[in-house]
């Protein structure tokens, strides 16, 4: 077999997601590329949580419908997912709680005999899985001892006891290749921000963006950044703009509901020309919607949010490498152009866990003209970008303003000054447009000469890329959505006669941008039940039109 898919399920509180992550790490340590899908309802204890961990020899960014093994901590896991089991697939289950066929282990009994605690059943089951897959104990033990957060000795004792109850059913081979870091999309974005040089991350908890907050908070001390959780998203963005004013690179993160509150601060950033990076992780809406499920339905909102007109940059990563690159670029672009820069992601990517490369993106050094004195915060410059100075600076007062202002930053209602400032921002927008319109901002894959083109963005690209592997189809996927890299996009579309647009929205979000540029999709494949599509589901839908 070239790849393995494992489904692990139980109740919220059973530690399913963490167990999945350890399984993924063990596969990664064997040289595999790994993807983990995490599915959970909006509750803390009980309910049904499951993860699908997929390991393959090639890079993968999505799950498949069929799995080779189901690890069941409760009956509901078997009842809900039995139909996903592939031919010759196996169910590994806790014999003390679940009735089914397969490999049953008395997890509860083992834990009781060795005086462990229920959560240690996870470690036991992981050991059982890898014993079944034929991986040597020493290998499993080495990863477990690195990944188990508490009571390592007791966990290992229980794992080994469980290990001994099973005989290998398969003999999976390690593949050559280094052990790749295995992190969630949110964490990959966060590392991108760090690589881009952020000084502060301010956020209010909101699923599915909280992973960025938690991760950066956990590394704040060693990286020297400030991470803060204030009273609301309104406070979040304004605090971050306070950081920007002092010359510190700041980022914030939220989901649609929190971003609603941030819009006045966004507009302030536009008027005051303050840099800020904003991560928005989309979930099913509108309003509270499905808090723990996915969507791509906020692009139009993000693109148009805030009163008045001002330039902004929106990027949508589809995989860890892009998250690293675009996360770093967001910091650089926002700082260089003094604009809001968005990373627009979604629950699937944010909370999906991926192996990625550990090569860091190169951040381009920004060449900024130095200030002239006496200093004017909004001094004119041909590209519309004023030289920045931060307080305290002896002899100068540095003024930013939410009102229409003159070059000094003093409030004005003068029509000529108003026009001048609008035109300054327009010139900046023009420079930004030219900057983003580069081939590397359009992802092209599949059959590059095909006359059928699939357009998609963000996390949807992962399954699309796999779904079309046996079809004559070209994938065209923009990484930057605003300003839209039009020339590069049209170049990538050359020769395409039939366009299929795939999005996780009901009304089409990228669709509206495409139409602005005269690109009209022939078919739309839209999904809006909050669930990401597996490879097979997309393959079936695409075949209808190809």
């Amino acid at each position, binding site marked *: 077999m070239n790849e393995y898919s494992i489904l692990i399920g139980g109740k919220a509180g059973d530690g399913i997601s963490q167990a999945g992550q350890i399984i993924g790490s063990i596969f990664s340590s064997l040289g595999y590329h790994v993807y983990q899908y995490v599915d959970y309802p909006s509750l803390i204890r009980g309910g049904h949580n499951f993860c699908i961990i997929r390991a393959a020899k090639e890079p993968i960014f999505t799950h498949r419908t069929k799995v080779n093994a189901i690890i069941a901590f409760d009956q509901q896991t078997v009842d809900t997912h039995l139909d996903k089991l592939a031919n010759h697939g196996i169910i590994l289950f806790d014999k003390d709680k679940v009735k089914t066929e397969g490999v049953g282990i008395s997890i509860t009994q083992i834990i009781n005999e060795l005086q462990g605690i229920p959560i240690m059943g996870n470690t036991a089951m992981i050991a059982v899985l890898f014993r079944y897959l034929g991986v040597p104990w020493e290998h499993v033990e080495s990863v477990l001892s690195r990944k188990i957060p508490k009571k390592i000795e007791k966990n290992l004792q229980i794992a080994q006891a469980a290990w001994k109850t099973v005989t290998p059913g398969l003999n999976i081979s390690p593949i050559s290749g280094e052990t790749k870091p295995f992190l969630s999309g949110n964490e990959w974005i966060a590392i991108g921000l*760090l690589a881009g040089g952020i000084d502060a991350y301010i956020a209010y908890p909101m699923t599915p963006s909280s992973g960025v907050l938690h991760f950066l908070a956990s590394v704040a001390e060693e990286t020297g950044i*400030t991470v803060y959780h204030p009273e609301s998203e309104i406070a979040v963005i304004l605090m971050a*703009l306070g950081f920007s004013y002092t010359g510190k690179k700041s980022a914030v993160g939220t989901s649609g509901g929190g971003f609603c509150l941030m819009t*006045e601060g966004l507009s302030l950033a536009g008027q005051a020309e303050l840099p800020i990076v904003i991560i928005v992780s989309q979930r099913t809406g509108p309003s509270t919607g499905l808090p723990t499920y996915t969507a791509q339905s906020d692009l139009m909102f993000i693109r148009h949010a805030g009163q008045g007109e001002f330039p902004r940059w929106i990027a949508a990563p589809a995989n860890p490498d892009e998250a690293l690159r675009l996360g770093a670029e967001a910091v650089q672009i926002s700082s260089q152009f003094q604009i809001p820069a968005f990373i627009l992601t979604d629950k699937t990517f944010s909370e999906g866990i991926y192996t990625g490369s550990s090569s860091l993106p190169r951040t381009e050094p920004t060449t900024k003209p130095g200030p002239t004195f006496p200093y004017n915060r909004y001094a004119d410059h041909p590209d519309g970008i004023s030289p920045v100075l931060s307080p305290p600076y002896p002899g100068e007062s540095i003024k*930013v303003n939410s009102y229409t*202002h003159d070059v000094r930053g003093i409030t004005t209602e003068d029509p000529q000054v108003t026009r001048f400032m609008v035109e300054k921002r327009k010139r900046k927008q023009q420079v930004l447009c030219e900057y983003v319109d580069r081939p590397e901002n359009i992802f092209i894959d599949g059959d590059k000469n095909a006359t059928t083109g699939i357009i998609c963005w963000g996390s949807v690209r992962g399954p699309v890329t796999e779904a079309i592997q046996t079809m004559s189809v070209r994938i065209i996927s923009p990484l930057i959505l605003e300003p839209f890299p039009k020339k590069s996009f049209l170049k990538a579309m050359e020769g395409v006669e039939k366009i299929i647009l795939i999005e996780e929205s009901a009304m089409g979000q990228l669709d509206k941008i495409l139409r602005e540029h005269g690109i009209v999709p022939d078919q739309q494949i839209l999904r809006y039940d909050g669930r990401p599509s597996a490879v097979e589901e997309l393959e079936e839908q695409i075949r209808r039109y190809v």
Partner: protein
Amino acid sequence: MNPNESLVADTKNTWCPGCGNFAIQHAVKFVIEEFEKEGVPRENFVFVTGIGCHAKIADYFNLNSFYSLHGRTIPVASGIKMANPDLKVICFAGDGDLYAEGLEHLIHAAKRNIDITVICHNNRVYGLTTGQYTPTSPYGYRGKSTPGGIHEYPLNIIEMLLGSGATFVARGYSRKIPLLKRIIREAILHPGFAHIDVLQICASFFNMTPQYDEFVYETSEANVSQFDVACRTGQQWNYSDPGPIPLGIFYKTIKPSFPENKEKKVINREEIIRTILSRYS
């Protein structure tokens, strides 16, 4: 902005004649000049303003300023202070601005004891939007949005701040300049969150001069660190009924303030990212 230059800018002033803002501007100018003489450079001050008549003070001083949004002085000021704890950050806010839309930030700033100074220009009316009631307008106030008179009692902002954990709570009056100067100076020196509610009149929509002049008095600051005494002083006037109005510093105490002044470490960002990534391999 060299020390010989006037702190007051040459921008055109559009406050109404008789506005209490002039007095506050004058007091602030005096205090900053005093600090300058003592060696605090003027560029270390940052003024953050909301939106309303008070906020024009940003344009009227030759000092660093962030002219922010209605109700949003405090989070901006907090970010600036957290980013650079060496700066002296002063919020100027209006009562509508700070006590209505900005209330959540005010309470939380007091709770976290962030080391900023808040000066509320409390004229108890929305001036720039032509005379609507604010959270501290008296019961029955008739404004354009409440022609029948409001059916709400005003918020006793002093009680509220004490209840929120503020470590410096004071009330000034724009016609008692020496007292106001002293309070502002002490507030800036206070290590932690300092709030000054400044009673000022709105010459156009709510001229309370006769009443304030009759009722204000300077309260004793002998027991300024005692919370219960501060609460009683704060309760003497409820912002509605006529009666004695205490002025001065009501409460002053020292608690751990925020942000902590951390030692700056030299960090090789790339190396640390690699270390972090290796933990996830």
